[in-house]
């Protein structure tokens, strides 16, 4: 048997994410071939808000994807003939990238950029004396000769990294301009001039500025986080930046997979009820009225507890903790999807009722077009803007719902890092004086940027696909 240095682990949510990614890539390829589909996406990229939000979203997606390639590393083995054993801990590629963050665990709370612990404790100063004060942190600032050097050191690091980052950005920008000018057959001077004066077809100036901002931020944080805890540490001394980064995947998974579960239900049922009327409408209305009148939290709690029992009775199906946590996450997505489709379904039914009487639908029926084609050509495209708005609003709502459910104890597995769990644990510390503010703030900022970028992006996309707001060509 071959002895790989690692064993790839495919969690259920990983597989679904790969599938989603494949679908998106295929969609992009097919859109590139069709001019009338390509045009609105082009106009998305031609708007400043579009590219800015897209770049931010891509950063999040990149982190989320890196966090979705899981493996178990091999355990050192003396006897090479015997079977290779692997660690029970499942790691992601992201963990390798940010290894220092993961491993530099302090004893307990410490504030951002602190060199000493947040709480006083007894510790031995030398052989005879016991001190009760703020202990020096084990990792943060350990390279400093004295604590007074901290701010000068941070300053120096920021300066040198910023310089390095700017140089890198400059190199990237120059390559970009050269490639572009070659493609367009213009001199690099002209290309630069056009870009700087904002006359290029796409907002390249904005793209480059945003790129510079991203490179600067990422590199600076990376450089600083080697020596300090940029966002502090939590109760058990784990780096909050690490937690925030790991939470990205959980948030994205809950946001996207739940939508995937919800959308087919809501769209198919809503359209069927609105278009066919009669008994189909009655049945669907009864289903969602019934479902709506059961408190969602109860349904979710029941489903998650049932799953918990199943997992306890069949431990052989779940080799690692990560697999258990993942199963729970997937189940949470499904159950959230099943309970949250009713709102969208109701809106779509109402809109379809209106559309089916529209004159263009009547004209289509008079032409003899079949029901399926009418739904596909006339009803669906005219509902897409509602779906798009609902999806984005739900996305942010779901990320928040995850936090609430974690509080009740029926959210994601406690071992899984999520913004919900971070907020939940930070909640307890809000009453402390001085207050432990960094966990909450970090979770808030990461969530806020993601939700804002998603909202802005959806806004631009909706505008682009609305023929009425398109400029006459």
């Amino acid at each position: 048997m071959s002895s790989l240095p690692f064993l790839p682990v495919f969690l259920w949510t990983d597989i679904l994410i790969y599938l989603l990614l494949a679908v998106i890539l295929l969609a992009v390829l097919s859109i590139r071939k069709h001019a009338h589909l390509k045009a609105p996406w082009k106009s998305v990229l031609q708007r400043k808000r579009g590219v800015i939000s897209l770049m931010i979203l891509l950063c999040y997606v990149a982190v989320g994807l890196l966090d979705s390639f899981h493996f178990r590393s091999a355990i050192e083995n003396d006897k090479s003939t015997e079977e290779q054993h692997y660690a029970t801990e499942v790691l992601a590629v992201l963990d390798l990238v940010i290894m220092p963050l993961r491993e530099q665990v302090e004893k307990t709370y410490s504030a951002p950029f602190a060199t000493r612990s947040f709480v006083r404790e007894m510790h031995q100063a030398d052989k005879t004396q016991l001190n009760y004060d703020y202990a020096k942190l084990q990792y943060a600032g350990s390279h400093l000769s004295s604590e007074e050097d901290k701010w000068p050191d941070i300053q120096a690091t920021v300066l040198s990294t910023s310089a390095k980052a700017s140089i890198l950005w400059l190199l990237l920008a120059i390559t970009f301009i050269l490639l572009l000018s070659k493609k367009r057959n213009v001199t690099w001077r002209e290309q630069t001039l056009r870009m700087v004066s904002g006359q290029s077809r796409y907002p390249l100036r904005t793209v480059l500025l945003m790129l510079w901002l991203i490179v600067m931020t990422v590199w600076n944080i990376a450089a600083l986080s080697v020596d300090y805890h940029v966002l502090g540490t939590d109760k058990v001394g784990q780096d909050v930046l690490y937690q925030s980064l790991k939470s990205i995947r959980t948030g994205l998974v809950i946001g996207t997979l739940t939508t995937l579960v919800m959308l087919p239900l809501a769209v198919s049922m809503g359209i069927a009820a609105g278009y066919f009327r009669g008994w189909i409408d009655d049945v669907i209305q009864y289903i969602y009225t019934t479902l709506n009148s059961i408190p969602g939290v109860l349904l979710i709690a029941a489903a998650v507890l049932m799953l918990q029992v199943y997992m306890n009775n069949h431990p052989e199906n779940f080799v690692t903790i990560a697999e258990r946590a993942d199963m729970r996450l997937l189940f949470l997505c499904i159950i959230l999807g099943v309970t949250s489709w009713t709102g969208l379904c109701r809106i779509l039914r109402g809109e379809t009722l209106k559309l089916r009487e529209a004159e263009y639908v009547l004209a289509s029926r008079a032409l003899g077009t079949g029901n399926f084609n009418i739904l596909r050509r006339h009803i669906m495209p005219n509902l897409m803007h509602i779906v798009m708005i609902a999806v984005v609003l739900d996305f942010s709502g779901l990320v928040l719902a995850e936090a609430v459910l974690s509080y009740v104890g029926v959210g994601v597995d406690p071992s899984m890092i999520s913004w919900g769990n971070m907020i939940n644990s930070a909640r307890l510390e809000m009453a402390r004086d001085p207050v432990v503010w960094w966990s909450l703030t970090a979770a808030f900022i990461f969530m806020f940027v993601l939700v804002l970028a998603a909202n802005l992006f959806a806004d631009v996309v909706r505008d682009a696909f609305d023929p009425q707001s398109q400029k006459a060509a």
Partner: protein
Amino acid sequence: MTTLLKVTYLTTHIGSETRPVRPVDEISFSVEKGETFALLGESGCGKSMTALSLLRLNPQPVSRIVRGKVELAGQDLLNLSEAEMEHIRGRRIAMIFQEPQSSLNPVLSVGQQIGEALQWHFDINGEALHNRIVELLSSVGIPDPLQRIKAYPHQLSGGMKQRVMIAIALAGEPELLIADEPTTALDVTIQAQILDLLKQIQRDTGMAILLISHDLAVVAQMADHVAVMYAGQIVETAPREDFFQQVNHPYSQKLFEALPTEQKRQQQLTVIKGNVPALDTVFKGCRFVERCDKAITQCDQTPPKWYQDEQQGVRCHLYDPSDNLISDQKQNENAPSVLQSIPFEQKPVLVLDDLQVHFPIKKGLLQRTVGQVRAVDGVNLQLRQAETVALVGESGCGKTTVGKGILQLVKVTGGQVVYHDKVLNKLTNSELRSQRNALQIIFQDPYASMNPRMTVSQVIEEAMLAGPATLNANERTERIVHLLERVGLDAQYKHHYPHEFSGGQRQRICIARALAADPKVLICDEPTSALDVSVQAQILNLLRELQQEFDLSYFFITHNISVVEYLAHRIAVMYLGRIVEQGSRNEILKSPKHPYTQALLAAVPKLEGGTEREVIRLEGELPSPGNPPQGCHFHQRCPKAMAECKTAYPEPTQLSADHEVRCFLY
């Protein structure tokens, strides 16, 4: 007479400072005390914005009055403060709008809404207020005002609502009433009632009226003085008599020529090429130059001045007194376009045999059917090849439902729709689908009848994909190009979306879609009522050409009698779900027999003849088809009703080979 309102160089801009849209561009006119001044023009030429600017009600903050003077009996309204304006609006100048439905507050009773206006302007309360409201309601001809005072707008019909709007406007006893298309949303018979009412009020109170309209006939009936607006400017003014005898500006001339009338039956209608120019363009020469046949070189270069002689004025280079250019213009002749005559003996293509469409009224928890709305209640009609049958009647009489019933878009309750020996309402869905393409429809609203998310070529392609003909992709593209060119559109626009086209162009695309299915019968459901006169002429010309080219039969649903005069072979008049009279165009228009037909034709405002006409005025409005009156449906409004009429519905009487009437008089 003294001048009541004097407007000089009024200019209103909308949007950005650098490139504003100028819907009102240096407008000057004056309204005398007690006269009716009509502002005439097509949609989008700035009529309504002018009216709103007079009252400083122009939308804020997007638009602003840039300069000019609006003097009401010597007082400049543009210099007043907003608080002072509140005592001008409603008190000295009142306004009524086109859509009475949306101008009344649905949660306040009629009495409250009139009382509100009264209390704002006068110190009046209690008994006196109540009496005044009743007085106002009866002065606008609302029967039983003591009861109606408590009614809510939804309990009143369209005509009644417009009367209430007029009552509110009269509450402040204004010196000037601005009426912005006051009858456009109403039926002909109701329109006649409202116009009469306005004239009567004017006689009683000596109030001046600023009438805004696109309808030449309404203007002819109402106005003392006429001004024609085009692209934000007044291009011609004249007293009514002079205007209707001799129009000067080429645009006004075109408007008259584009009107479909009986006399123009043997020729194509004149069309005005192109569209009203965008109002944000900076005009170098005359604004009408691109659409004018009489344009001379000056028209391109310098904007025409205003040439005034006594009461008549015109803005056109042709009337420059220093130049004699008028003589060398020759009158262009319209191409003849003869309506084919269809022999009555010919076998019909489409037969409606006792067609009934009833809608159940459902009530209660279990949705039990408690009654029927008899929208269409036994219609017999025949349509021959290449023939146009016009179905006329007031709104709510079931015209459109007949059209939908023919196409099986609504479930037919009883009777038969026979097309080429096939009973369409008895076919199964799949059998019906193979017949679908032969019967097509063109809708009233060209904005709503195309999917906004499909390009023009997709819209037309859909018709080919649904039909029985199997064409490959290339053949389809070829046919789309051919069809677009046939209906007079440039084929290079086939990948554009509907919203990029004007109303007339959209209606052409709808026609192209219908043609793509290769139809034999075309149901035209008020295809031109949403369009301006000049565009209407284009569409009517096109429909006529297509009829001759493809031998199409038209089933033309309309309330516009002048279109019927121009286009129809035969006419059927519908009242409350039944056809009361049908016959050839000549018979119906020249010697209408049914009292309803007579009243309907009399209500149509005419260009010639002026205001002194002997007319039959219909009282009241269309009863509800859910609860039709006993006996003849028309007896309550009929001036010639007899005892018999209250008991039974009259059977059809054959007056000639194809003239049939349902009335006890015959």
